[in-house]
């Protein structure tokens, strides 16, 4: 397949679809969008078939075109096991989301579908880019369509949510840009002012692994910037608060993609860039990140317990689940990282499905308040069955895909430090608690008066909805029973990333700098508490702004 630029094809097929939609009447928007997404999906599957898992750690199907020669910036794409998985996840969830949008989205379909397809371009691009500059561009491209999707087709408080989403993400990503540039320059400076390769992923990685790698101070700062960008995206505690808002306000498909793919960008970034470029800094930061991950795991679960809104609950559960991803990555153990990657894929499938399911209810009731639900099992048995399936999948029921990733992460964590694993494992209880409690309140008991008031609107899942959910169910079962499919593909990537990071050694941190940093943090908190009265009714104020 040497001649065919298959990666570019996958990346830009959705764009072609978007352009086509732009020039066709809006009645064609839906079929064309679905067609484009399906086509992309099929090509991505072909890619997966053509991919050589035995060389999974190496980049395959690479494409390389000089782009901005002045800085050695290239249009360079390539796929390894890690990116392959995430690309296929993206293409899969994309068409499912588009299909799931057919009914709920009734206004400005053209714009919606265009946004969605451009979003897909950005997401795939992030996973395939092998040039840091290109990576950044795709990273930011993701932002805009998502901003529109939440902002235009979202719920009542959508504007607050979408602006928060964008601003939050931008803060991180712009600092990351600084880090990318700094890294490139360090490379250039080390190569006698030659820009060639300064943005090239493989060249930078090789440089990082050679000799002392990048300068320790640069590493600390650049990794810090990358960390912030990725941590916000993941999102890690305490950078997670944009997520519940964004999820609650986003349309169903937006939530699916948000949870299914966007959060994965962070995890992907950590593995691909954070560890390989700045191994020493990664080692330095790892303990803190592990602690934050543990907090996120437990904290997300506890807060999920008391959520009154279905989507918020699932959103907080994402915080908890994604905590496993960061935990798995930063313990620097093969099992942990493999678990983390599996967890990313599985969280994408399961949480994506949960959002679809919440969407199904919302479609019928225009409500997501758990308190008003109840007794759905009697009226929507098929729905409740599927719902239950994914609830248990999310709770990490063995045999379904969620379990394997979680358990591998825990095994890795245990060999890193049993106490870490113990804390993280504790979430098995909390996870079951909030998920089952939600399930019980929604599905069992007598039909609530609110729901019975809806009368015949409360129909069971439609064939289209089943069509969106069935593939996810199949994958969840398949990956639960045969996780080897995924593991074989990622083993190589994991080994490489770990080889990179384990070649590093933690950098001694100036205690003074640490104290200043923590002091600044404390100051912000104090400022916040002092100014508490000013924030009353902020949501409405923001919204009217």
């Amino acid at each position, binding site marked *: 397949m040497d001649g065919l630029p298959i990666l570019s094809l996958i990346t830009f097929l959705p764009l072609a679809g978007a352009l086509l939609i732009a020039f066709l009447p809006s009645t064609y928007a839906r079929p064309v969008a679905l067609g484009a997404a399906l086509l992309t999906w099929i090509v991505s599957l072909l890619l997966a078939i053509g991919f050589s898992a035995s060389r999974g750690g190496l980049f395959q199907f690479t494409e390389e075109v000089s782009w901005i020669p002045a800085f050695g910036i290239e249009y360079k794409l390539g796929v390894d096991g890690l990116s392959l998985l995430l690309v296929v996840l993206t293409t899969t969830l994309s068409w499912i989301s588009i299909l799931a949008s057919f009914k709920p989205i009734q206004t400005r379909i053209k714009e919606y579908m265009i946004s969605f397809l451009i979003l897909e371009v950005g997401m795939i691009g992030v996973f395939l880019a092998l040039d840091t500059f290109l990576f950044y561009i795709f990273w930011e491209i993701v932002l805009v369509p998502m901003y529109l999707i939440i902002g235009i087709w979202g719920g009542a408080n959508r504007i607050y949510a979408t602006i928060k989403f964008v601003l939050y993400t931008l803060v991180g990503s712009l600092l990351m840009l600084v880090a990318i540039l700094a890294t490139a320059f360090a490379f250039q400076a080390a190569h006698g002012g030659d820009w060639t390769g300064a943005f090239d992923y493989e060249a930078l990685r090789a440089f990082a692994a050679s000799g002392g790698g990048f300068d320790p101070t640069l590493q600390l700062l650049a990794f810090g910037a990358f960390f912030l960008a990725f941590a916000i995206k993941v999102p890690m505690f305490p950078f997670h608060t944009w997520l519940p808002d964004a999820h609650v306000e986003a349309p169903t498909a937006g939530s699916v993609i948000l949870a299914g793919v966007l959060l994965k960008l962070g995890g992907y970034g950590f593995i691909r860039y954070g560890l390989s470029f700045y191994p020493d800094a990664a080692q330095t930061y790892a303990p803190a990140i592990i602690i934050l991950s543990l907090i996120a795991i437990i904290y997300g679960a506890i807060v999920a317990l008391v959520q009154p809104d279905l989507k918020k609950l699932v959103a907080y559960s994402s915080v908890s689940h994604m905590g496993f991803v960061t935990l798995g990555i930063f313990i620097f153990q093969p099992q942990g990282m*493999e678990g983390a990657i599996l967890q990313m894929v599985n969280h994408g499938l399961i949480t994506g499905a949960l959002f679809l399911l919440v969407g199904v209810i919302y479609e019928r009731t225009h409500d997501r308040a758990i308190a008003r639900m109840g007794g759905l099992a009697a009226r929507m048995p098929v729905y409740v069955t599927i719902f239950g399936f994914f609830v248990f999948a999310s709770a990490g029921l063995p045999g379904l895909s969620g379990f394997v990733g979680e358990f591998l992460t825990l*095994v890795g964590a*245990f060999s890193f430090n049993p106490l870490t694993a113990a804390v993280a494992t504790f979430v098995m209880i909390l996870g079951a608690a909030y998920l089952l409690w939600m399930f019980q309140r929604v599905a*069992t008991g007598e039909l609530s008066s609110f729901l019975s008031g809806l009368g015949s609107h409360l129909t069971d899942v439609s064939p289209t909805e089943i069509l969106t959910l069935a593939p996810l169910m199949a994958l969840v079962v398949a990956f639960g029973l045969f996780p080897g499919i995924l593991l074989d593909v990622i083993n190589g990537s994991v080994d490489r990333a770990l080889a990179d990071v384990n070649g590093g050694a933690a950098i001694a941190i100036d205690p003074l700098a640490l104290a200043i940093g923590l002091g600044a943090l404390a100051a912000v908190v104090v400022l916040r508490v002092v100014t508490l009265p000013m924030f009353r009714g902020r949501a409405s104020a923001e919204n009217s702004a």
Partner: protein
Amino acid sequence: METLIPLIAALPIAGFLFTAAVGRRLGQQAHIVPVAAVAISWLIAMIVVFTALTGGFGEEGRSVKLWDWIPAGGFHIEAAFFVDNLTAVLLIVVTTIGLLVHVYSIGYMSHDPGYWRFFAYLNLFMFSMLLLVLGDSWLTVFVAWELVGLSSYLLIGFWYRKNSAALASKKAFIVNRVGDVGFALGIMAIWVNTGTLNIRESIDVLTSETFTAFPIPVAIVALLLFAGAMGKSAQFPLHVWLPDAMEGPTPVSALIHAATMVNAGVYLVARANPIFASAPEAMVVVAGIGIFTAILAASIAMTQTDIKRVLAYSTLSQLGYMFAALGVGAWTAAIFHLMTHGFFKGLLFLGSGSVIHAVHEEQDMRKMGGLAKKIPHTYWTMLIGSIAIAGIPPLAGFFSKDEILGEAFKLGFAWVWAIGVLVAVMTAFYMFRLIGLTFWGESRVDKAVEPKIHESPRVMTIPLWLLAIPSLLLGLVLAWPGPPLGPLFGQEGPGLLAGWLEPVYHDGLEILGHHEAEFALFGIDGVLILISVAVAVIGMVAAWRLFGVEIGGLRRGGNPAQVQALSARVPFLYRASLNKWWFDELNHLVFIVIGGRIAAFLWWFDANIVDGIVNGIGTVTRLSGGGLARVQTGRVQNYALGIAIGLIVMVASYALMTGGR
């Protein structure tokens, strides 16, 4: 044989998938496929069991690999089955009782709209349970461990419209999860210690090297595994889910919450016996928790009025016995009791189901009485079960319970024995209280229901009788050392079961250094037997005096006044028993009230502090922007003054830079 072993588990899951897919359309025929699947599974299991117990798989057992489940580099897990004698013994219990419960359910559930669903779930449970006993690696066992939890969840909450059922199912799953955390951590610890999760390999590694050389001490591993067992087998303090689980249909209570799933913990500890043997501290914990659960549950069972709850606490109590046995090192006795208890408790539950059916879904024993003549099959089978559990020779319960108590005493755990004896009194008491209240004396049944009381159909009574047989004879058969059974299985010595399990326990016993003492009927063993029988009789008679009796010539009415007087004599104990020692209240306080407060606080924290900082930064930014905008007064001179001041500052700052560089 290699293909047969997977079939045992594959048939029920096939039955589940089939029924889940098309069962809704089959109506009253929905049971055919599931029951057939379990029946064939039973048949195959019996072949496998026979092969195993006759040494067909050798001492080491036989494993069947299906596929590489998790090939994550060094962490390599196979999906594989394994059969040895312990598995075989468990297979007997699981498949037999499973099959009988399936058959019984055809009658019991016949009028339920969720008929097909029930059989689907039952099949799912059978698969999970079989996977549990057949699993070759700790992780497979863990998978099954969770899957039985799932099926239990589904079956307890079978009547999902009932809020109490939904709550109970959730509670069961979550409390089980608490134990599962321990189990999961135990598995991780095993992997970290040994690098493998294959059960036999890992045990070999764990027990062959010096104990201190492991990153995780073996005692910790053992206790973590035991935590899993505590959850599944409802040992204190994780016992709270089991009584609530009675919200499920009665066949479920019989199958899952009496005969099979709750035994999984016992199986786990027995399976891991060398690990426990290497950690004597852990064994003491096991024994202590077991016997404490036994007496705690027995004390509660004495005052409960719900027929199924009495049986549930009784189950807890008997499971406590088993763990006590495991803790003292009487592993054979534990499995022995597991088997006998499985049968007679299954019988009792199914019988109680029949009773409940007869009195139209009434479970309160205060509204029963005098049913012996109206539902004779049920009465007689339940009586057999009660005598068996009370420990009256030569019924099954006598042998197994006596072996536990005897072993405990002989192995130096006198305190376990002492408490065990006390529990035996209570057991006999509450069982005959149950029989007395239900079957004997005057009828207190609702007048409207009274005329409609009828014996259950044959599809239900036949299983009862089929279970009554092992309740009667199993103890004798398994404990009897001599012909004709011993030679048939090529065994001599202490008893059939002990012989079968010898290879399983061989390593563990070696580590422990225990040797089976010679059985001395006219020595210490005789005395212990006498005591056992005596206390059983004491309990029984006490129950007769208070609640009446009608066996043959022995006739006597109940004495409610005396019951009241007695309870008033020990008000605290009575109330504690009636209120189940307030565990539900405690849990409510700790998890719902305090836990809820914590969660609510964290949510507040999230929305106001964490998010507040985020929004606060935004607000402060905006406010400062608004403040700075005030500079823009619209008046040129103000601007000019600003510029002039800027100029002055500029001059001053450049002035500071004058002179050298």
